[in-house]
């Protein structure tokens, strides 16, 4: 049993926590992206140099994580919106939550392979 703030962590609560964490993570990347893109104002050499920061495996894995955050945040957001429009759906909150988590994992398998193919043995 996992506790968060001393209270048993349910999948629905984890989904909410994940929604916040993924949203903040994506926002953080947005700021990073603005800074990185704005280096173009300092000339093409500086911009090209900043782009080299992304050309390595840890940065690529970070991008995969970013994609996972985006996919999860979008799917979970749709779940929350659907419940807002049709409150009767809340009765199925457990399968819906499991569905969002499963769909995120399943989507990330091909996406992860495509994004990291340059680093894979057959890439």
């Amino acid at each position: 049993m996992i506790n968060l703030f001393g209270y048993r962590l349910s999948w629905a609560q984890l989904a909410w926590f994940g929604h916040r964490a993924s949203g903040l993570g994506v926002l953080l990347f947005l700021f990073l992206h603005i800074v990185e893109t704005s280096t173009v104002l300092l000339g093409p050499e500086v911009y090209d140099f900043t782009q080299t920061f992304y050309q390595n495996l840890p940065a690529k894995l970070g991008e995969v994580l970013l994609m996972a955050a985006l996919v999860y945040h979008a799917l979970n957001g749709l779940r929350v919106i659907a419940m807002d429009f049709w409150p009767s759906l809340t009765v199925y909150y457990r399968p819906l939550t499991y569905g969002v988590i499963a769909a995120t994992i399943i989507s990330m398998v091909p996406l992860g392979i495509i994004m990291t193919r340059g680093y894979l043995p057959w890439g």
Partner: protein
Amino acid sequence: MDVQLRIRRFNPEADTEPHWEEYAVEAEPTDRVLDLLHQVKWYQDGTLTFRRSCAHGVCGSDAMLINGQNRLACEYLVKDAGTSITVEAIRGMTIVKDLLVDMEPFWDSYKQVMPFLVNDEIPADGKERRQSQADRERYEDTSRCILCAACTTSCPVFWSDQSYVGPAAIVNAHRFIVDSRDTAKEERLEIMADPDGVWRCRTTFNCVEACPRDIKITKAILEVTQEIGKAGIR
């Protein structure tokens, strides 16, 4: 069977912070956690303080944080709780002593939603206000609330800010908002549309999992938000 009972205790006259104390108690698998608390209070330490009244899941006075989740001590059996059990006071409330909390803020939120039928009109037949079975069905679920506060004190939003009206008050507002005989719907919806009202729900479903009456609380909360939308309240 032997059960290790850990209770988070607090005596305002002697302690500055709550602390854990352990008790070894003998129990049957079909005993309730409330029976264990009785054993401690009656035979080991008479200073243990907790609230309970009917002890049969009706009055809702013994909601506690047991094994990390809000439950009624009188409904939770040892066979389900295991041989190592932790008991704490419900969250977000001021602890008066041990497992006893000050429920006044909870009652204030409850009173705020006017939990009573408002209708000063004379019934059509002069005797009673009739409604269809379908209209009665609309508040069947939310009329079963026993005001134990297990839902409100399981809510992370309430933990962080006690000005949030909380799931229990919303459930009781819903019970009258969808009642076809009531005439104060607009007034209740105005209260629910307050920044500390229904919009603060983050659909974590802790309330639904904690409710000892299995009330579909989040469904009721979202139905109230829809009623606010339909009434055009901003």
